[in-house]
């Protein structure tokens, strides 16, 4: 657990920033969700979000989403300064409605996937990804 002064400062700032984040950032995520769904109710079933419980590297976290029958899937990192990660749109000829990407996470936060189905309904899945200093295990 050694940190250079720069890393220490960066982490210290990160921690400080995190403690201030939730209200403002969650509001940004909520705005993005409202813009996508128009405020419609979201089902808990229908979209699968695959993300690690603890990120091996917060700068590049693999995330996969899948929602059979979806026309569009929105992926948000609720705790990032800019929550929008990606919106995957699927045409009628799509063989399957799934996608994978890697995202950068500013700190421990919820990653959210919202699928818009062909019938206009919405489904949501969310997963907490922890970003940790590490060390001291085992």
């Amino acid at each position, binding site marked *: *657990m050694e940190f250079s002064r720069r890393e220490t400062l960066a*982490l210290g700032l990160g921690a400080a920033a995190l403690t201030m984040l939730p209200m403002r950032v969650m509001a940004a995520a909520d705005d993005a969700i409202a813009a996508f769904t128009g405020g419609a109710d979201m089902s808990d079933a229908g979209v699968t979000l695959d993300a690690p*419980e603890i990120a091996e590297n917060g700068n590049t976290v693999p995330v996969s989403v899948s929602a059979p029958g979806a026309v569009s899937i929105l992926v948000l990192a609720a705790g990032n300064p800019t929550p929008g990660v990606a919106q995957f749109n699927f045409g009628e000829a799509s063989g399957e409605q799934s996608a994978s990407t890697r995202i950068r996470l500013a700190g421990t936060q919820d990653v959210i996937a919202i699928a818009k189905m062909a019938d206009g309904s919405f489904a949501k899945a969310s997963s907490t990804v922890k970003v940790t*200093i590490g060390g*001291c*295990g085992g």
Partner: protein
Amino acid sequence: MISRRDFLQVSMAASALYGASGFGNWGRLAAQQKLTQDELLQFDTFGNVSLIHITDIHAQLKPIYFREPEINLGVGDARGQVPHVTGADFRKLYGVNDGSASQYALTYNDFTSLAQTYGRVGGLDRVATVINAIRADRPDAILLDGGDTWHGSYTCYKTEGQDMVNVMNALNPDAMTFHWEFTLGSERVQEIVENLPFAALGQNIFDAEWDEPTELFPPYKMFERGGSKIAVIGQAFPYMPIANPGWMFPEYSFGIRDERMQEMVDEVRALGAEVVVVLSHNGFDVDKKMAGKVTGIDVILSGHTHDALPEPVLVGETIIVASGSNGKFVSRVDLDVRDGRMMGFKHKLIPIFSDVIEPDAQVAALIDEQRAPYLSELTEVIGKSDSLLYRRGNFNGTWDDLICDALIQERDADISMSPGVRWGPSILPGQDITREDIFNVTSMSYGKAYRSEMTGEFIHVIMEDVADNLFNTDPYYQQGGDMVRVGGMGYRIDITKPQGSRISEMTLLKTGELIDPAKTYVVAGWASVNEGTEGPQIWDVVESHIRKQGTVSVAPNNSVTVVGA
């Protein structure tokens, strides 16, 4: 018709009440000083399949002392549940008599006096005798190594794991999974694994670049034993690149990946597996959660958190077996496989009392051969201890207090930090401390002792981060170590709070003043996961400190106040 779950519960009850595991029996015999090898190994062969499990040996080739934890707190659903039961509560739960060999093997109380009565535990030559005896009963028994094998001693460090590979190969395991092995560096791990005469399994060992399975570490292996098809699925430690230095094995990615575990269970069932065994390095609470999420696992052989349990824990229709650490125990699990499924089991946690179990001559000679080139360095006496030195426990152990003290003295620091690892044998009061003993509690491939400046605020961030690795109520967010050990600073921890609000009242012990978030402190520590860490090796720091003391005494440590336990 009786359900399979009923069958399993009958097996559990038999194990608990009638001593089918032999556990109650050897406890009483031991109290009468009549413990014999035959009694330790006594087992009425059951069913048609036998599993032998050993895990977390941490390169302990020779018998050692190992004190089990006094404090091992569970949070959330695990609060007060096995394995978070210690001392008298543990003995009551399992019917272990006070003063018995079982008390000595399984709990911490009266450790020093019981150690003098019952002697050292472990030694892979004794383990070999136990394995051979089980194979005499059941020649096609499956021997499974749960990992943390090629790490943790002087000779293992010097030979980069070769001593352990040589000795384990002589025991002829059928499969293995991994954790600390990867801290040898990916090149060395690949070199060893390519030549292993048994399966190297890990359904969760992935290629980091492509996030896809590797060829070197297949997810499972199928065995045909006792007329049944048995699948063994490997589960490596999920958080290796986080808890250990990921830069040493950047090609690999891990994670729990329980959805893939389900796919693998379904796949082996489709291939005709009648029994599914998971050889796991998840840690006990993670295994419990996984057993509740993944359906179709019959047996989880659990490693990583070093728990030794006299009986399996039943989650749904899955039994979880925990076999201790440091070569102290071997588990034997006999299975009755009928009509394409597991219908019952019989289990025994066999303690390796080194004075009772005869060493296997061949393996004993092989062990001595590994040690011969290093014998004079290994056996050099550095000092002596007046105190019982141990490590296991959630917050501090006397070994770590000594290491933290060495860091402060030798590195001229305000505060010191020592990783909350769970390996490392104990030293009895009056015992000499050799170089080997120091390596047994410090050996690793990233052991450099750093000296760094940190703000009070940042020290708090570290403490909260590590505390959450241990006390997050969701086991999937736990990494399986204990709390970072701290020298020169006291603190209060409320284990029931969320991350960010568990740690308070951080106090600099030398002044009695509260830690100032804005102030900078000199912190010495070791086992940094960061690349390029500079400083002397921790074992040299500790050796120098002990030499200066001559005889070390470790005063009781009351600097951590635990709330919510």
